[in-house]
């Protein structure tokens, strides 16, 4: 069942666009992924495209196997809904795109040469401010302009540092000359003293001038250190400018600002010399787009990715239009969703027809509601919303959803039935498990509520039925118990002693009913005497039964003489007049020769009479019947 729900909810998510995306490496089609055929069409030849999909749950989108983080899922949904609700971006899109194209052209490798190096940069720089005036630019051009201006400033600083470094180098060379000069002089002085005659006070070397030399050496070392510091500062400045610029470029790419990424890349290419063209920042991220082990990311790699994405977005929006024209609204919606998240800031997406967007918004809301119903497992309302969505989008795959929903409903109902059966058999644990299963599948299943009411009602009923059962048993009202046997059976199912008693009563009354039925059949076959025998036999144990009494009263007029004789016989026997009783039975047997009751009674009484005849002569004389046999009253045999 759990597996079923996974399918169900994945289906629901698929329906509503809340796709459960597989990890980036997934190569198989995953339910819920929105495959971008537009991307795969051309890019497969260049890239190893694993999958492109929008993962609303994780707030990410995969493109060419790379996951773009789009924020959390709620914000992502809200952003897409806001896009569908918002009016198109104002401004002349074509003019904006032309400005951006012009900037690209000004900075293109074929346009920039030594003579126009600065003018091209300046002209492109100025155009950035024009582009920033358009709403759809969102002032990102100003960011590029700031970055370019910063590079220019750094470049001036670099020049100043270079001058300082050159001056220091000149100073160091001068200091080096002074040191050499001073050292030579000290050496010469020492040589002169060494060659003088020994009689003039002896040979003695002098250390005069060495202190000054020491200071000169120290000065030269300080200058050397300053030069090295300037060199380091220049290197750091250059690296910093590269890193900052590259960070901005990769940032634009990951933010899906593809045009700005391309323009920033173009500026970078012009501003930095050939040795700095490799990507240092975001190299790892860029490499992920190119599954080649020894791939070296360059500016061109970024350019390629950005242009490919722009092409995909452009093709995606054309597909959206075409599908909408063909009436395939749901497919169009899917394409729009994936295209939006790939190229949210592309002018073609931002200026999408508001009327079509409105249509998509209505579909989106219905799909969201359908998803909510699915989340809440409100299966009863799924069909209604599926039909509503199908009303908007005929290509919506609602049949499979309805099939799964119907299966779920059936499974839930079966579990409720199983719970009922378990409850009736007294297996509470099994009933609870089955009910829980039914609730998990379909929490709002009306049969669950109905079952709960039945359980409560049953508990009430049990509280009433047990005392009633006990009272009827104490009053020997078997027929009343029999008439309510189902209610008692339900109420007493968990009470073994009473259940056994109920079973005995049901069997007893059932047997009595069978005898009554047998008597009725015999009477209807014109054999009332045998019918009476059956009733008399039954009456021995069930003398209080009303149905038996009624049947006896129905048949009695047909067998009045026979009944009278039997009654008389039983009366005599009861009074100890066995011989008289025997004669009465003989007389009754004359009327009904086939009677087993008569035969048995005669045999029994004959044995008694034969065995006790010698005592009889001395016993007390019993009172004979005083009433003649002319009365119509039918005596009823006494109950035993």
């Amino acid at each position: 069942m759990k597996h079923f729900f996974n399918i169900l909810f994945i289906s629901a998510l698929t329906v509503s666009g809340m796709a459960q995306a597989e990890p980036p490496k997934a190569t198989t089609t995953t339910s819920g992924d929105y495959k971008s055929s537009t991307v795969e069409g051309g890019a497969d030849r260049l890239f190893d495209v694993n999958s492109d999909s929008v993962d609303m749950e994780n707030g990410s989108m995969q493109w060419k196997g790379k996951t773009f983080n789009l924020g959390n899922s709620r914000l992502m949904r809200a952003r897409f809904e806001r896009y569908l609700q918002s009016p198109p971006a104002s401004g002349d899109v074509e003019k904006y795109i032309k400005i951006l194209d012009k900037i690209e052209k000004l900075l293109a490798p074929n346009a920039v040469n030594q003579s126009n190096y600065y003018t091209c940069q300046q002209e492109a720089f100025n155009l950035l401010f024009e582009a920033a005036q358009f709403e759809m630019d969102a002032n990102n051009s100003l960011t590029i302009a700031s970055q370019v201006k910063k590079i220019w400033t750094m470049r001036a600083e670099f020049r100043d540092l270079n001058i300082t470094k050159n001056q220091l180098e000149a100073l160091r060379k001068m200091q080096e000359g002074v040191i050499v000069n001073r050292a030579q002089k000290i050496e010469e002085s020492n040589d002169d003293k060494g060659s003088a005659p020994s009689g003039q006070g002896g040979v003695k070397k002098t250390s005069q001038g060495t202190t000054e030399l020491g200071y000169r050496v120290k000065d030269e070392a300080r200058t050397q250190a300053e030069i090295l510091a300037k060199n380091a500062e220049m290197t750091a400045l250059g690296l910093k400018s590269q890193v900052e610029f590259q960070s901005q470029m990769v940032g634009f790419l990951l933010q899906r600002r593809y045009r700005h990424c391309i323009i920033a890349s173009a500026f970078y290419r012009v501003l930095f010399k050939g040795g700095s063209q490799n990507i240092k920042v975001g190299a790892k991220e860029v490499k992920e787009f190119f599954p080649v082990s020894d791939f070296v990311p360059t500016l061109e790699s970024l350019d390629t990715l950005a242009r490919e994405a722009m092409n995909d977005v452009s093709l995606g929006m054309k597909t959206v239009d075409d599908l909408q024209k063909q009436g395939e609204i749901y497919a169009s919606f899917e394409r729009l969703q994936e295209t939006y998240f790939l190229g949210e800031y592309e002018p073609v997406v931002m200026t999408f027809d508001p009327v079509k967007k409105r249509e998509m918004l209505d579909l989106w809301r219905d799909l969201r509601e359908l998803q909510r119903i699915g989340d809440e497992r409100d299966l009863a309302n799924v069909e209604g919303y599926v039909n509503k969505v199908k009303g908007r989008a005929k290509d919506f795959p609602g049949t499979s959803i309805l099939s799964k929903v119907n299966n779920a409903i059936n499974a839930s109902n079966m579990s409720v039935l199983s719970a009922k059966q378990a409850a009736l058999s007294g297996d509470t644990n099994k009933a609870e498990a089955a009910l829980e299963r039914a609730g998990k599948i379909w929490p709002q299943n009306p049969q669950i509520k109905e079952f709960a009411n039945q359980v409560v009602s049953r508990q009430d009923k049990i509280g009433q039925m047990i005392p009633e059962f006990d009272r009827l048993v104490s009053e020997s009202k078997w027929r009343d118990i029999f008439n309510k046997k189902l209610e008692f059976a339900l109420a007493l199912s968990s009470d073994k002693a009473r259940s056994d008693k109920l079973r005995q009563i049901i069997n007893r009354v059932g047997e009595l009913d069978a005898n009554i039925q047998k008597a009725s059949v015999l009477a209807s076959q014109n054999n009332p005497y045998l019918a009476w025998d059956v009733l008399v036999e039954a009456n021995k144990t069930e003398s209080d039964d009303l149905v038996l009494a009624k049947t006896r009263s129905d048949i009695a007029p047909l067998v009045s003489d026979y009944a009278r004789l039997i009654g008389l016989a039983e009366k005599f026997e009861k009074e100890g007049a066995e011989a008289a009783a025997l004669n009465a039975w003989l007389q009754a047997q004359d009327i009904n020769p086939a009677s087993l009751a008569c035969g048995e009674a005669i045999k029994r009484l004959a044995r008694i009479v034969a065995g006790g005849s010698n005592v009889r002569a001395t016993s007390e004389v019993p009172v004979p019947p005083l009433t003649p046999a002319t009365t119509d009253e039918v005596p009823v045999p006494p109950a035993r």
Partner: protein
Amino acid sequence: MSKIPPIFYALGIPVVVIVILLAVVLPRLAGGGKFADLSAFSVDGYRKDWATMQGNVYRLDCQIDQQLSFVEGKGRILAVKPTDTARGAGRISVFVPLNGGNNFEVGQRYKFKVRVSRDLLVVEELEKF
């Protein structure tokens, strides 16, 4: 020697035979026989009120219908049908004490001398006929 005429024999012998037969059969036809002096037993009266017949002795002409019970050392209970239905029809039971020598077969006819002992008819003497 005087000779008896044959006619005498021809008439005398039948007459003698007839006389003998009448002497034997008539008393029986008249309901007498061995217990001719006893009152005939009334089945209806017995059934209706045997208490008033307590201790009385009657003659019961009947046919054996069935032996109902036999107790060694005591006797047997027979179901008999009165041959004279004028005083009541239907079977009644009689007790024949064990006095040896009597074989009862279904269908045999007897004259019983019966005594009403409480509600029971006890056969004191009997005669097959």
